[in-house]
């Protein structure tokens, strides 16, 4: 996958996270922390993962989310799984 694919993933994440956290999309960047800055709880995160799985037709095991804190880290995980699929 290319940088374009990564950017596309970040864009999708920012869009969905803005909706879930009721935060303006322009204030969300790859460095934004999902928990401390956007208050994304475990239930919202699991719902988001299902949406991402469907959007990119991939499987994201929820145990792979343990160390994910930022938008960038989540995008990188999705990018890695998508590249391997």
């Amino acid at each position: 996958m290319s940088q374009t694919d990564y950017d596309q993933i970040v864009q999708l994440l920012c869009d969905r996270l803005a909706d879930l956290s009721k935060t303006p999309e322009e204030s969300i960047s790859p460095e934004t922390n999902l928990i401390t800055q956007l208050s994304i709880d475990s239930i919202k995160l699991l719902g988001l993962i299902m949406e991402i799985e469907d959007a990119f037709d991939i499987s994201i095991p929820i145990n792979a989310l343990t160390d994910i804190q930022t938008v960038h880290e989540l995008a990188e995980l999705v990018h890695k799984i998508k590249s391997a699929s």
Partner: protein
Amino acid sequence: MNLLEKLDAAAAARKSLLPDGVGAFGIPIEEVYSATEARIGDRRVLLLGTNNYLGLTFAPECIQAAHEALDKEGTGTTGSRMANGSYFGHRALEREFADFYQCSGGIVFTTGYQANLGTISGLVGPGDTVLIDGDSHASIYDGCILSGADIVRFRHNDVADMEKRLRRLGERVETTLIIAEGIYSMLGDQAPLAEIIELKNKYRCILLLDEAHSLGVLGETGQGLVEKTGLLKAVDFITGTFSKSLCSIGGFCVSNHPQLEQLRYVSHPYIFTASPSPATIASTRAALELLRKGSHLRTQLWKNCTQLYTQLKETGYQLGPDPGPVIAAILDTPQQALLMWRSLLEHNIYVNLILPPAAPEGKSLVRCSVNAAHTSEQIKYVGDTFAKLYNLVKS
């Protein structure tokens, strides 16, 4: 934030929901009078917050069996079966569960929670996959985490969504365990077992069905959803608990796969814990016998379930899709649920309060558990009280 400060933050979040310290969680029950009544504070309350589905907590047969076991074998086993040995009762109950489900083998665990932990973590490991319903019980999630397998969720009871996820797994379906529940504990709805089995066969996976809430409740002899649907032989592993219809504490797994026996040697929740006490095993054996012969109890239970479900539905409450012993009024906010829970208690009715994140989709639940010992008058009183309080939560 240090470790203790993290707990303080969690306590503050809880307090913000329950500002006056009302003990909605772990409420002190001072005395239990019967399968349907107890004392909370100075109130004699109707119990609709227990999972005593067949109403057997005071069954004389179970109490006598427990007394005899206490007298004969003492209060506890004081150790694990692996190290300290298996009592006659442990082995007898395993045979009886295997016989009940027409399986070649059975294993008894110390709690229902451990039955799922032990079975799942024994069946799958790192590199394998578990495909679970999004509304699975915490014991299923925790068993999956303990196993180290990859955990993939499908949308609750959505078979098309499940197939999409199976397809994405590709060759990994060969080492995939699918897990579903007979009756889901939050909304009381049942798994679409026939469709799940169709997919399990198509993708050649292994299926574990947790009958915790459906044991004693569904099917002519109370086996659960497997009996109601006639699909007993198509399920690979069945787990369940003693702490609901069987009115004690413990859990089990049964299967026709001979590999079940190997779980005793690889499953930490089986190995590294004390085995169930003799009295627990004895009362469970007596209760299983009553459960098997208890079609009259199931008839009464379903009469009560239908009566309450119908009345709440007619009043206007949003409920789960299926009538059953778990009847949850789905409310929009925790504040509504707390107000309803508190008002019901003021009317001497004890139910369960379930708030996010435990409740699905960010909703809050006021959950009733109906049992066979409730009288028609008691159920009517509960239904009438819900109707009287409807304006509190009407949107």
